[in-house]
């Protein structure tokens, strides 16, 4: 079997590779947690890309129900059709709408199924999917049909920790917590996104980035995605590393604003701290 070792656009640490490959080998769902922006959602895409398998994404919202992942029976459409005298109305199958899980069971070659932000839904949501994820099959009550996956898709589930997940669910998953990348890893991540970026600029950008993250009391610490957006701006404006080295926080703030610092409070905090000044002396 092909192993996942990262891609040309995704840096996977050794522990992440082992977790992904173990989930592949043992055909268990993989639960991914970590701060926002640490590459949880993109991971599924990258695994699909690396293994050359299709990706099916199910983005969970607070109102998402487990049943919607299996199928939905569109009774309203059927009622409407019956009022209009549409002959389709006689086949209930016309009103069964496949959910993401069903699609994943149906897709060939065997896909990667991403269940993104599972913690957004009701706490019962994961429990309601236990059996289906275990057996990779379910029953369609309306048509008396059993839907079964020919091959078990790799299920990648992400969570932002907004809610506890039930124990029974956790026991079935493998788990990986993406730690916030250290400087080396972050450098490699930036390099895959901006190949050929000047080392001096990247070096300086990373220094400023990690300094900003260190500032106590920030409402929103910038994450990987913010760093990447910010570098894009730097490249677009063709800033030099020296300009990032400006000792006066006041001069630096406009260059951070928008990408690295996103809210007023954090910007005020910055003005007060003028932390670059102290760092420089």
């Amino acid at each position, binding site marked *: 079997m092909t192993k996942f070792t990262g891609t040309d656009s995704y840096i996977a640490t*050794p*522990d992440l590779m*082992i*977790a992904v*490959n*173990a*989930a592949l*080998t*043992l055909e*268990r769902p993989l*639960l991914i*947690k970590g701060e926002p922006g640490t590459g949880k959602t993109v991971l599924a895409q990258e695994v699909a890309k690396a293994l050359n398998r299709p990706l099916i994404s199910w983005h969970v919202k*607070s*109102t998402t129900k487990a049943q919607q992942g299996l199928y939905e029976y569109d009774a*309203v459409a059927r*009622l*409407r059709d019956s*009022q209009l005298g549409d002959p389709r109305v006689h086949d209930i199958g016309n009103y069964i709408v496949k959910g993401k899980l069903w699609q994943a069971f149906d897709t060939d070659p065997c896909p990667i199924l991403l269940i993104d932000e599972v913690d957004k839904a*009701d*706490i019962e949501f994961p429990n309601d999917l236990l059996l289906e994820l275990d057996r990779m099959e379910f029953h369609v009550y309306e048509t008396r049909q059993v839907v079964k996956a020919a091959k078990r898709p790799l299920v990648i589930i992400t969570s932002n920790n*907004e*809610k*506890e997940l039930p*124990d029974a669910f*956790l*026991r079935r*998953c*493998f*788990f*990986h*917590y993406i*730690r916030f990348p250290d400087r*080396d890893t972050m450098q490699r991540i930036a390099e895959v996104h901006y190949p050929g970026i000047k080392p001096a600029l990247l070096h300086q950008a990373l220094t400023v980035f990690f300094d900003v993250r260190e500032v106590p009391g920030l409402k929103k610490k910038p994450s990987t995605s913010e760093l990447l957006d910010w570098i894009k701006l730097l490249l677009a404006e063709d800033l030099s590393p020296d300009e990032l080295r400006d000792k006066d926080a006041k001069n630096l703030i406009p260059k951070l604003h928008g990408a690295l610092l996103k809210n007023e409070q954090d910007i005020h905090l910055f003005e007060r701290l003028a932390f670059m000044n102290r760092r420089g002396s």
Partner: protein
Amino acid sequence: MFLTLFLDLRAAKVPVSLGEYLTLLEAVVRGAAGFSVEDFYYLARAILVKDERNLDKFDRVFATVFEGVVSQAGSIEEFLAQIPEDWLRALAEKLLTPAEMAEIQALGGFDKLMETLKERLAEQNEEHHGGNKWIGTGGTSPFGAYGYNPAGIRIGQKTNRHNRAVKVWDRREFKNLDDGVELGTRNFRMALRRLRKFARDGAATELDLDATIAGTARSGGMLDVHLRPERHNKIKVLLLLDVGGSMDSHIQTCEELFSAARSEFKHLEHYYFHNCPYGHLWRDNSRRWDDRIATWDVIHTYPPDWKLVIVGDASMSPWEITTPGAAVEEWNEEAGSVWINRLLTQWPAAAWLNPSPARQWSWTESIAMLHQAMGGRMHGLTLEGLDQAMRQLNRGAPGR
């Protein structure tokens, strides 16, 4: 070695089940990781730990268990080969819960399980290694990942890509994810977020009748069903707060926490007590002497679907709980335990949050007594404790 890891993890309160343990074994046999202890560490971590708060505990246990192995420069397959054939049995006798024993019975009993496991091992060996026996052979590799490996890789010689000097698990990278710290200003926002989640849990959709009628009328009698998320704030909380003790500042933090989340609850009412709720409570702490309310009246005011949250350090003379007339501030006709029982009868969904450090719980008699009176539903006033309490309140039944 395996057994020690399992036992020690359980001792360190990392919840590992037999199922996960077998999975780890299967993963090793099927070559889900390479040969190094570091790979094994990552694999075991991914399979055995399900919560980042336990990662640091895992690291500590792993370090002690594997200290010997790594320094002896033995290979991983050597120590894996040391797994005694009946380790499973030993395991079961030592520490399986009745539920897990039942699970094993359901799988066809213990012997069947062993057999299946061995078969699986044998299959794997044939598939990947031309029939090498795994159990008990030592030197040759049972791992599929890189095929047959005659030399075996010595742990002592292992250098990884980054040439790290310190073993990964010794770096304790997950230390700050352990959330047993007490609630304070630093983690207040976090706690508030979780409390809000609690209030919002159970969101469902309901029929929006007005919109459905309007929509149907608009489309000329064609049925047009509208759904909307059920209104969230249906949770009603009765908060009883202990005042006048050494833990006042923590209790105040907790009170602030709940009132900050007030808009999320359908109702939030609070009363004060001292040490333990007895026959009277009061609403305004500055007028506690002349504005008391009979606890019976409170019991009769709020229906049983309210959730009861008691906050207090539960530290007092044990007499206060067991004996009438032993309360410090009032003449109580009935003992504290009688009142606790009454409260629990009225509001079955209840939790006690205790700000005193967990290590004091076992040697403070009154805490143990109230813990028991609450049916085990006492939790620390920490993020973790708050979580446990809220989860258990949502379930409604006594916690596990």
